[in-house]
């Protein structure tokens, strides 16, 4: 039993166990899961969640959370589609759209960061509120309608082009994002400061780290990556509108906790985020293949988040040898 707990306490132990479980279930019920075509569709889904998860990772590392990623993706998807559509799908129109989208992301990120640091509001309240504000802006920008993309140029290629005739573009962008994030976190001073800020804000401040700056930048990175995800999604769907990326924050949050990241901050890396995205993609795919109605996905998501966070908490406490002892009433009196 001790060995089992130790194995499950190890992050890779958990990951391998979950993957093996899924494989067994799918091997019994639905062999189509293992077909190459399905692997491709899983990879496409993963790349979207993965890009967003890589950004969210920064915010989670400094102990925050961003619930506005879904709305942010819808906003950039709409802005890009509108600019591309109005310009008649020229390269210039596309690039303006991308630049305006990124600018919007940076603005939102700065607002999040300032509200969280300078005004010391709880991150989830701020981002829950901005989620609704951004959603309102999306409705204003699109007029509540879907923008349809009719193009076979750059706007189509962003989400559907196959590099070397094989690898879809979103996956390439995802890998690029993951590598860049890993480099930022692993090799730069900023990355180290981010971990320090998340691990112990007081100590970081005392040693002279500008913690507010780290937090603001991490929110900007999160918004930008959500925005990139949204733009790719617009191109993949060839349309964008108010319901684009609806509920993606749930998926990304699930990816975070399934990836074994500590929501209190200071722990975790890109591998966790990528693995989380992988698992969320596989599980969603599994539900579809098993014929579970799409209404059930939120239900399953909720269950997964709860069980993953509980498992993380339980095993990390056990593996570190910290077993919480209950205070006896007699101790308090004495």
């Amino acid at each position: 039993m001790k060995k089992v707990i130790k194995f499950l306490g190890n992050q890779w132990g958990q990951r391998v166990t979950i993957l093996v479980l899924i494989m067994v279930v799918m091997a019994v019920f639905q062999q189509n899961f293992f077909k190459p075509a399905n692997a491709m569709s899983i990879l496409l889904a993963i790349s979207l969640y993965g890009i967003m998860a890589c950004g969210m990772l920064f915010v989670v590392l400094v102990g925050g959370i961003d619930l506005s990623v879904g709305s942010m993706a819808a906003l950039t998807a709409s802005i890009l589609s509108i600019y591309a559509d109005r310009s008649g799908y020229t390269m210039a129109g596309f690039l303006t759209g991308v630049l305006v989208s990124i600018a919007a992301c940076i603005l939102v990120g700065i607002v999040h960061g300032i509200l969280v640091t300078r005004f010391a509001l709880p991150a989830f309240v701020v981002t829950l509120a901005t989620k609704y504000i951004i959603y309102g802006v999306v409705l204003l920008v699109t007029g509540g309608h879907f923008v349809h993309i009719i193009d076979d140029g750059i706007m189509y290629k962003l989400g559907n082009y196959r590099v070397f005739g094989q690898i879809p573009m979103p996956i390439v962008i995802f890998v690029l994002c993951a590598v860049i994030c890993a480099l930022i976190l692993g090799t730069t001073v900023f990355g180290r400061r981010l971990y320090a800020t998340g691990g112990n804000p007081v100590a970081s401040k005392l040693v002279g780290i500008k913690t507010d700056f780290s937090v603001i930048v991490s929110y900007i990175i999160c918004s930008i990556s959500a925005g990139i995800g949204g733009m790719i999604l617009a191109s993949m769907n060839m349309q964008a509108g108010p319901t684009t990326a609806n509920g993606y924050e749930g998926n990304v949050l699930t990816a975070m906790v399934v990836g074994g990241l500590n929501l209190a901050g200071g722990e975790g890396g890109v591998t966790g985020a990528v693995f989380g995205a992988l698992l969320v993609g596989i599980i969603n795919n599994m539900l579809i293949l098993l014929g579970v109605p799409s209404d059930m996905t939120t239900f399953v998501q909720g269950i997964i988040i709860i069980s993953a966070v509980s498992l993380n908490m339980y095993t990390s406490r056990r593996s570190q040898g910290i077993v919480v002892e209950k205070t006896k009433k007699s101790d308090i009196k004495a």
Partner: protein
Amino acid sequence: MNKKNLRRVISAMLVIALAAVFARTSDHFLSARNILQLLREASFVGLVALGVSFVIIGGGIDLSTGGIAALTGLVCARLSFIPGIPGIAVLLGGVLTGVACGAINAFLVTKVRLTEFVATLASGFVYSGLALIIAFRRNGIIESRPILNKSFTVLGTHVGGVYYITIVWLVMTVLMMLVLTKTNFGLHTYAQGSNPKSAQMSGVNNNFIKSGGFLICGFCVGLGASMVVAYQSAAPVTLGSAVAFQAIAACVVGGIVLGGGRGDAIGALLGSLFLTLILNGLMKYGLSIAWQSILQGGIIILATTFDAQFMKLPIKRRVKVKPGTGKEGH
């Protein structure tokens, strides 16, 4: 005037100012019928806000109220189709569903020790997922069936123009005000919200207070959702999708500080009135759903920032390091 009263006056002034604007611009705003309709609309948000306020005052948050409302509504609808069932039993079933959801939240937070917002966000997914699962379907497509159970839908009607749900809301507000001010439980809730550590050291049972908050929240949401279903004679699966966020906004406007320890039931009441008035007014002036969304988000941010900056209320203990001393201060 102390801070608490000042904040109360501010939220009351907001409601009065808004009402004054509408009374000036619309002739029939002050008609008894319109006011009673507005009160009915405010009742659901009000009841949910009342429940959430307990959790917030205790230092937590409940994001699952939307899911609880949707689930409760569908349980009521399902129950009301049992032939010969009395309306009060349907109501009881709805309220019990709410309480059960609250109990699950309490279990997740106190025993499994998840953070409040993660636990309730995820459990909210679960509840709304369950609501979709037990929803009425025709050929796999969700449909909203009219509830014909007369003894249940009578709960949605009014007596002398005042809707039952409004009466329930006002009675609950008074009751909760008494609980907050006159009982040990209320006192401990404030203590826990202000400073959980010192509260625990002075003998407050943290888990008991947290569980109590979630149970009361589940109770209020269940009650509100059941009454709304009775009024609408239908239980749409989208019943709770807007109300969870509106309730938090109402709490914040009413001076219930996110972070805990401040505010009371009257604040939740004023906040709900304000929110209903403003959303209603927006609709009257033909502003789109886009502006409603922006406004609700904006209200939360503005009100929280206001409380943090100008009222100097402790939203979250901001870490300040005094240069040179190496000491941590608040």
